[in-house]
């Protein structure tokens, strides 16, 4: 990874989808390998990128280096295609609406009231609906009925048409779009805010396109055809009242464009009733309305939509950045990137132990009546006690006693020689708590060679009881001795353990 070449990009839908995909893929990897990989990248990044979220973004780019378009990029393209379709729909409907509202065939003038209703009143009403949808998530729980109202308004928002237009996408883009939608569904708590603003961006794109198209169409009609304007309504509205409304509406541009403010005379002279005979208004005189109407469309239709679009776009970016920073797994990723990698475990696998308990089990045989006792490696028992213990427990007589192993005066070869020279079977009294090491097994093997086959050799593990008296061993220690000596494979080697005595 070449960190120096990573350009930091803004967080958009594509980045979020890519990050979520990467984190999902990483979740299947070994945690240690992941930690190591990310720390290596993190160390390289920490010197170049200060902000933690930017580091995550750079990390994502670093991992994706050299591959083709990512799922996120495809999702982003899909989103652009869908938004373009929405904008095109807005343009078409805008042109159609303007043609309908500004339709003039010479019989009746264009009704100013209709223009204001469609391009001002209706727009202000939908702006209120937009504002309701845009209210913070937390308010949904606190204001009674708000959640239901928002849900209903979302149902009629043009932004909702985007998923319905997905059929227009190519297979790859559709799959990427569905992936993004699935992600949002799985992590609704995280994506809720971003989804809301995405919906509003879609809606406002539609609305801006609608108003641009309507405005341009109206200007074209004004410029390339002759229109006559008048006003007519069933309501009891007189000229003075409409003048008040028009003055209020044109207060925004009154100083800059005084010609776009209707006069009282114009209003009085351009009122008409469809049932009245003759030409309702003088077309030349009524044409003075167009400036006012176009200014209304620009000021109350287009301008607020452009502002709301910019706001929604900004909020969407903020929400996506928040999602990017709090996706499941991002906290862990930051930890892996920024925390030192500490490992204490072994670097390689442990080698298998060659130990096996599959040796020949000593043949059960009649215990010898006479033994030569060997106190091995300082087993803590007096000579007198040995005779008593052997007689009472094994029913054998002790012909003689020797000391062997560590701390004894005889070395191993002298001990073997002494034992081989007598008829009594050797009986080794060993400490059960010390394990049977190879040194003991060597001695037993050498003793067998010296004594020849058939002669019993006994090993008796002894334990200490609570009062530190020697007693026949039992439990794990005795079993360890039995298992280890069985592995020697000497059929005349007998391990005396307490369970057998019992």
């Amino acid at each position, binding site marked *: 990874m070449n960190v120096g070449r990573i350009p930091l990009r803004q967080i958009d839908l594509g980045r979020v989808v890519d990050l979520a995909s990467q984190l999902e893929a990483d979740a299947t990897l070994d945690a240690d390998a992941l930690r190591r990989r990310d720390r290596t990248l993190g160390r390289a990044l920490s010197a170049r990128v200060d902000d933690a979220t930017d580091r995550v973004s750079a990390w994502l780019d670093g991992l994706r280096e050299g591959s083709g378009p990512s799922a996120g990029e495809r999702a982003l393209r899909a989103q652009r295609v869908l938004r373009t379709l929405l904008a095109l729909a807005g343009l078409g409907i805008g042109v159609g609406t303007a043609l309908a509202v500004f339709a003039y065939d010479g019989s009746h003038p264009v009704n100013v009231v209709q223009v204001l209703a469609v391009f001002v009143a209706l727009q202000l009403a939908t702006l209120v609906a937009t504002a309701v949808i845009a209210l913070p998530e937390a308010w949904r729980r606190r204001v009674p009925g708000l959640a239901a109202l928002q849900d209903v308004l979302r149902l009629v928002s043009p932004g909702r048409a985007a998923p319905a237009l997905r059929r227009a996408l190519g297979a790859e883009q559709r799959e990427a779009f569905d992936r993004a939608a699935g992600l949002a569904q799985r992590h609704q708590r995280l994506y809720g805010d971003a989804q809301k603003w995405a919906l509003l961006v879609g809606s406002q794109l539609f609305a801006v396109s609608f108003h641009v198209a309507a405005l341009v169409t109206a200007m074209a009609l004004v410029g390339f055809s002759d229109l006559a304007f008048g006003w007519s309504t069933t309501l009891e509205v007189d000229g003075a009242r409409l003048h008040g409304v028009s003055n209020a509406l044109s207060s925004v541009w009154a100083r800059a464009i005084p010609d776009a403010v209707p006069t009282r005379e114009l209003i009085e002279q351009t009122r008409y009733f469809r049932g009245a005979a003759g030409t309702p208004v003088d077309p030349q005189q009524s044409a003075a309305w167009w400036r006012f109407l176009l200014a209304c469309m620009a000021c109350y239709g287009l301008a607020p939509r452009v502002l709301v679009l910019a706001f929604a776009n900004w909020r969407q970016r903020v929400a996506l950045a928040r999602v990017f920073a709090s996706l499941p797994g991002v906290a862990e990723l930051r930890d892996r990137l920024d925390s030192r990698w500490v490992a*204490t475990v072994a670097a390689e696998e442990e080698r*298998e132990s060659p130990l096996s308990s599959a040796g020949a089990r000593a043949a059960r045989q009649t215990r010898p009546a006479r033994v030569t006792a060997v106190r091995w490696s300082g087993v803590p028992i007096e000579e007198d006690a040995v005779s008593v213990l052997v007689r009472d427990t094994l029913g054998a007589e002790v012909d003689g006693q020797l000391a062997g192993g*560590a701390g004894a005066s005889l070395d191993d070869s002298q001990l073997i020689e002494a034992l081989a020279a007598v008829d009594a079977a050797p009986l080794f009294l060993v400490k059960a708590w010390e394990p049977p090491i190879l040194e003991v097994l060597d001695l037993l093997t050498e003793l067998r060679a010296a004594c020849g086959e058939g002669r019993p050799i006994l090993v008796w593990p002894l334990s200490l009881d609570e009062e530190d008296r020697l007693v026949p061993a039992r439990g794990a220690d005795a079993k360890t001795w039995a298992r280890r000596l069985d592995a020697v494979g000497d059929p005349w080697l007998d391990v005396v353990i307490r369970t057998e005595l019992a």
Partner: protein
Amino acid sequence: MIAAVPTFAVVGHPNKGKSSIVSTLAHDDSVRIAPDPGTTVACRAYPMRVDDEVQYVLVDTPGFQRARRALAWMQERETHAGAHRDVVAAFVAEHRGTGGFEDECELLTPLLEGAGILYVVDGSTPYGPEFEAEMEILRWTGQPSMALINPIEDESHVEEWRAALGQYFKIVRVFDAHEAPFESRLELLRGFGQLAETWRGPLEEAVAVLAEERLRVHRRVARAVATMIGEMLVHTATRKLSYDADAALYEASLEQSWKDELRDRERAGRREVERLYGHRHIEREETAFEWLEQDLFSTDHWFFWGLNRRQLVASGAAGGAVLGGAIDVSVGGASLLLGSLVGAALGGAGAWWSSTRLTRMIVLKLPMGGRLLRCGPVQSTNFPYVVLGRALYHHARVAGRAHANREALALAEGEDRENWVERLEPARRRELDRIFRDTRDGEERTADLAECLVPLLVEGDAPGS
């Protein structure tokens, strides 16, 4: 000869706990520990690495198998005390690969390469003369050394060992590899610095890094537990139904699936916590972690793990009082605080009634046709406390568990366990209440919950917790 990187060979008689000490100090429960002598057949290094830089190395070695005969060989070739180390080197050179003294060659090699000696004995068994040959050979290597008395079963022979070891080693310490809490492990590592002046600095740094890493582990665990609770709180199970299907027929099986999924999530959370503490084999080893195997949905145990009835009622009453208080305020106090009183009474009663109520079934109409039977999310206010109580208990046991310990996790018999909620500061308790409520309402509060849990986890990791 001293190794540039602090290196410690853990040596001794077979079955005295060498591998246990390494396992606990390296936080690695993959180390093979068995009663049979000769389980460890080759040296195995456990380097402590920080961003690939090695701070120190522990080396587990096979036990002495033929120490008397090895010493006899050396003594036959002894010329003067200054040449002892050369004799040991010659012994290794001559016997390596011959099969005669394989274990001795293996364990002496790291010492000849500059490792310090950690000689391990079992303080629960008596001292014996068979150890003297081993200690003498180690003395001949001339390496700095320390004796560790590992009381495997009890400490009945510790003093006897201390007296004997004192004749061969300047430093003798007692370290129970199966029970040592984290602080004792750090203390021992710090103590290794006494072996060589040049090792002291790197070891001090390593100890600081390990302590810092422990705090990070607490945060990771907090995040894992918070994520688990968050997911469990909003978890639902659904089943599509046709218009003419009888929903009641599917309710029992759907509820069962919902419960199973929650149980699985809790288990997965536990495995994650164990993994974060380096216990990767605990599942295979343990069969009787009885207290936690009690069913998550056994509501009889809920008052043990979570809020008891009094706490539940108090919590419900407080919430009700706040709502009622709003009414009092809205009427300018004309209600004479009746709103608060009634709210508290209703809230408390509601909390009592719903204390063990799990969830409910809902049939939803689908926009594209058909119906959806939904079970969950959980409704009981006590449930997150129950899950958290169980998670804290499990964490305390896992965090305090030495990696050499291969016994089943179990609550000590007769242990009088204090209700953990009682110990919570009121502010933290209120914060938890808020977070659980917001999470239920669909708000993302994982990070806040994790932050809130860190002190509880640190407390659970303290010795004696």
